[in-house]
């Protein structure tokens, strides 16, 4: 009898707990559905980010980890169809036009020097020939370099426009005709679902070129201030001008209308991240010039004091301060400053500097000032700082002019406070229009800007124990060009798209694990 009691109690306890041992719902039994959407034909529109571009090139392995391809992989669990990408011919990137190399190969880390990665382009001739057309279904229509208005520009896929700059070789590869547009080609494929992430380049090229346009004078590049456009006619824009928000919004609207006309009304749109939070702008600090006390003393005597005296005489003494032992600001060209070249030359000559040298210094320092914490020094400057201007080699004790310390880096290598403000103002305007379009057309919306801001925060984004940040190389999310993402970075983006699709269309596409994709490759 007593035994019976005990066994009854034991049995009762067992019964009450046994049902909690297994998962309430096994993930293996979850049925993935498309909800109110239909993923059978998904077309992605966009620029380099959409194409899978990374390490300054488009190449096969990168394309395989493009965020649209990652999304399409999940869509296949819910009736999604094949996702065809215009794959490049090799894993080196770059392109040839017949026998002319028109785009270079990807970057790789060849080694480390003083703890910093040494980046090189793969030494290979590209094997992707722009003239070899890809026909048939193209699901990933991301075109590296495309701005918003390029998606609706006829002739953007016309090979004869490549060398004149009216066409884009990436689109030329798969354009359906010499007069087709990316938007019309997309619509003609009758997508059941689309994504569009465009507008980044409408402001990015301004930023990555330090707010300048390149002008060739006697075959030498010179850099003139780019324009914050208010014109609604993009054919008047120079390549690094900031597009007017009306042009960006109008172009996206035209794309959406074109798609709608073909019956494609369900899709997702993403906004534009603040481009200045990416490693291309945040890696080199404004005070990247280390000086010893002796070196600072020598520079003050030889350059800074006389230059400051001259500038003070000309009413512009605030452009320079004496340098000190420790980290010092980089000498930059600010095209908003009055050009004092002639006056400087005159003052220096009058103070006894030989005329040719005075002219050389006057010429170089006409719009120079020290950078401040509000200015951004661009990533390519990292290979120039500390280089002897004359020899092109790392500075020695006898170097008189050294980039950054005693000679300015070019205007195209810094984004000044005012220029950075132009960038932010434009992005804010674009994003407000994109949000409006998203709701007007009933699309799912991805706040890519918020996600990138999170990535750039001090704690970054942690996933299953791996911490990602917007730091160059070590952050894991950005590729070697400091602008585009790694496979892991694109996976983080893909998850944002998947979340937004699920929430808008009541689908339950599973997330992906960023850690499973490729990051930065080290030798």
């Amino acid at each position: 009898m007593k035994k019976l009691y005990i066994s009854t109690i034991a049995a009762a306890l067992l019964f009450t707990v046994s049902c909690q041992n297994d998962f309430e719902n096994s993930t293996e039994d979850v049925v993935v559905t498309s909800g109110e959407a239909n993923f059978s034909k998904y077309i992605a529109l966009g620029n380099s980010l959409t194409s899978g571009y990374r390490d300054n090139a488009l190449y096969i392995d990168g394309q395989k980890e493009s965020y649209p391809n990652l999304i399409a992989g999940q869509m296949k669990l819910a009736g999604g169809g094949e996702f065809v990408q215009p794959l490049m011919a090799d894993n080196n990137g770059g392109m040839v036009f017949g026998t002319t190399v028109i785009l270079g190969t990807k970057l790789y880390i060849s080694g480390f020097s003083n703890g910093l990665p040494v980046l090189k382009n793969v030494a290979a001739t590209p094997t992707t020939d722009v003239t070899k057309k890809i026909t048939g279904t193209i699901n990933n229509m991301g075109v590296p370099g495309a701005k918003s208005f390029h998606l609706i520009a006829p002739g953007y896929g016309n090979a004869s426009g490549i060398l004149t700059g009216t066409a884009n070789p990436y689109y030329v590869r798969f354009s359906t005709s010499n007069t087709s547009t990316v938007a019309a080609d997309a619509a003609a494929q009758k997508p059941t679902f689309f994504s569009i992430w465009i507008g980044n380049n409408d402001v990015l090229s301004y930023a990555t070129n330090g707010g300048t346009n390149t002008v060739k004078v006697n075959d030498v590049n010179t850099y003139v201030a780019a324009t914050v456009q208010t014109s609604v006619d993009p054919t008047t824009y120079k390549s690094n001008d900031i597009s007017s928000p009306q042009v960006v919004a109008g172009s996206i609207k035209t794309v959406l209308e074109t798609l709608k006309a073909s019956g494609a009304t369900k899709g997702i749109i993403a906004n534009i991240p603040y481009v200045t939070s990416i490693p291309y702008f945040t890696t080199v600090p404004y005070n990247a010039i280390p000086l010893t006390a002796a070196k600072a003393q020598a520079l003050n005597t030889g350059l800074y004091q006389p230059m400051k005296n001259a500038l003070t005489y000309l009413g512009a003494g605030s452009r320079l301060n004496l340098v000190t032992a420790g980290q010092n600001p980089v000498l930059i060209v600010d095209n908003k400053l009055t050009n004092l070249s002639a006056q400087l030359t005159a003052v220096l000559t009058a103070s006894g500097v030989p005329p040719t040298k005075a002219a050389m210094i006057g010429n170089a320092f006409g719009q120079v000032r020290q950078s401040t914490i509000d200015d951004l020094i661009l990533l390519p400057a990292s290979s120039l700082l500390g280089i002897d201007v004359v020899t092109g080699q790392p500075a020695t004790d006898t170097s008189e002019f050294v980039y950054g310390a005693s000679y300015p880096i070019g205007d195209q290598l810094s984004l000044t406070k005012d220029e950075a403000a132009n960038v932010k103002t434009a992005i804010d305007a674009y994003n407000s229009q994109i949000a409006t379009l998203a709701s007007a057309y009933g699309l799912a919306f991805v706040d890519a800007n918020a996600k990138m801001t999170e990535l750039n925060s001090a704690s970054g984004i942690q996933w299953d124990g791996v911490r990602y940040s917007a730091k160059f190389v070590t952050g894991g999310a950005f590729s070697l060009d400091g602008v585009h993402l790694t496979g892991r970075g694109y996976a983080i983006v893909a998850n944002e798209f998947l979340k937004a699709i699920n929430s808008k269309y009541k689908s339950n596409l599973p997330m992906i694990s960023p850690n499973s994709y490729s990051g930065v490759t080290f030798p």
Partner: protein
Amino acid sequence: MRKILITTALAAGVMAYAGGFRVSLQGVKQLAMAHTSAHAEDASVAFFNPAGISFIPSKLSVAAGGFGVSNKITYQNTSTLQQTETDNPLGTPIYAAVAYKVLDNLSLGFSFSTPFGSTIEWPSDWEGKEIVQKLELKSFFFQPMVSVKLAPWVSFGASYIYAKGKVDWTKALTQYNGQLNLLDDTATGHGFGFGFYFQPDNKWDVSIAYRSPVDMKAKEGKATFMVPSSLLPNFNGGTDNFKATLPLVDEYTLGVTYKITPKWLVSADYNYHGWERYSKLTLDFDKVAAGNQPNDPTVLVSPKNFKNTSTVRVGTQYAFNDMIFGRLGWYFDQSPYDDKNFIPETPSFDNYVITGGIGLKFNRLGVDLSGAYAMPKSRTFNNPNISFAGQAKAKVFYFGLGLSYNAF
């Protein structure tokens, strides 16, 4: 008595248990009765309570045994829908003990056991790879002891604990496309234990014991960073030393056995474990800045936030005759951390276990067989320290073979 039993059993249902990496498998006969402690028939009592050796009904007694632990953990990520199972090898805790009555009221004893340990092996590319791919924890306790009979019905015993341990931990360094291995097999630690054992009459056994914490100190641990060659200069060429301390926590035990009839006994135990001691794991590397402390980049501190746990055990034995004994038990073991602190290197669950076994007595030789089936409660967790979330469940099965010999 029935009432007491019922109350105890019910109380057990709402109480908690010891989990973590404490492996309560130090007596095959004991396991068959829920691993209860107040059993002084042979030398296997030595681990449970040094005072118990005074009541072994022979002058010299030896006992030894071993277990097989089969366990499988399943992890599922409800957001990626991925499911992963461990591929753990069979665990094999062992023990041996000897007790000898030097004088009628003075006994000496020695116990060898492996009371803490864990081996977990996840697929190397699983979602939690940055936290653990494989972890092997081992401990060996060497305990000389002495027990004195204070009166015919009570004894006091004390032991010194010398512990040796091993840790072998491999995890991914995802950002560097590499792996980190932390290895130390020379960690040592010291502790002590003591207890009182009572046999007021021929019906009751009461065991009260305490075992101190043992801080296993790895002083010469070897860290191997398997990373691409260009990164080796950042990792001191790929190898470094580390120091770490892993606490093997203290345990309070109160055990009672009551002979309802000469043939039928029941036992109950209460254990309390000081897991709070494992609040964080600090790895101090010699040279490599693999840490996360702003003032010392070579020190890596990982919060563990364990909390103290209790275990309740109920067991019974019925003697079918002088030779054959049947045993049953049930216990409940508590996970030492909550859902916010779930860690996949030592997955723990609130755990209900049923046990059973048979004992055979051939004169002085005892042969015991036991088995136990655990029913860990599946759990849903989200650990913000490592941004690791999902659900986990486990399947655990123990079996053991033990021998005892009461020589004379």
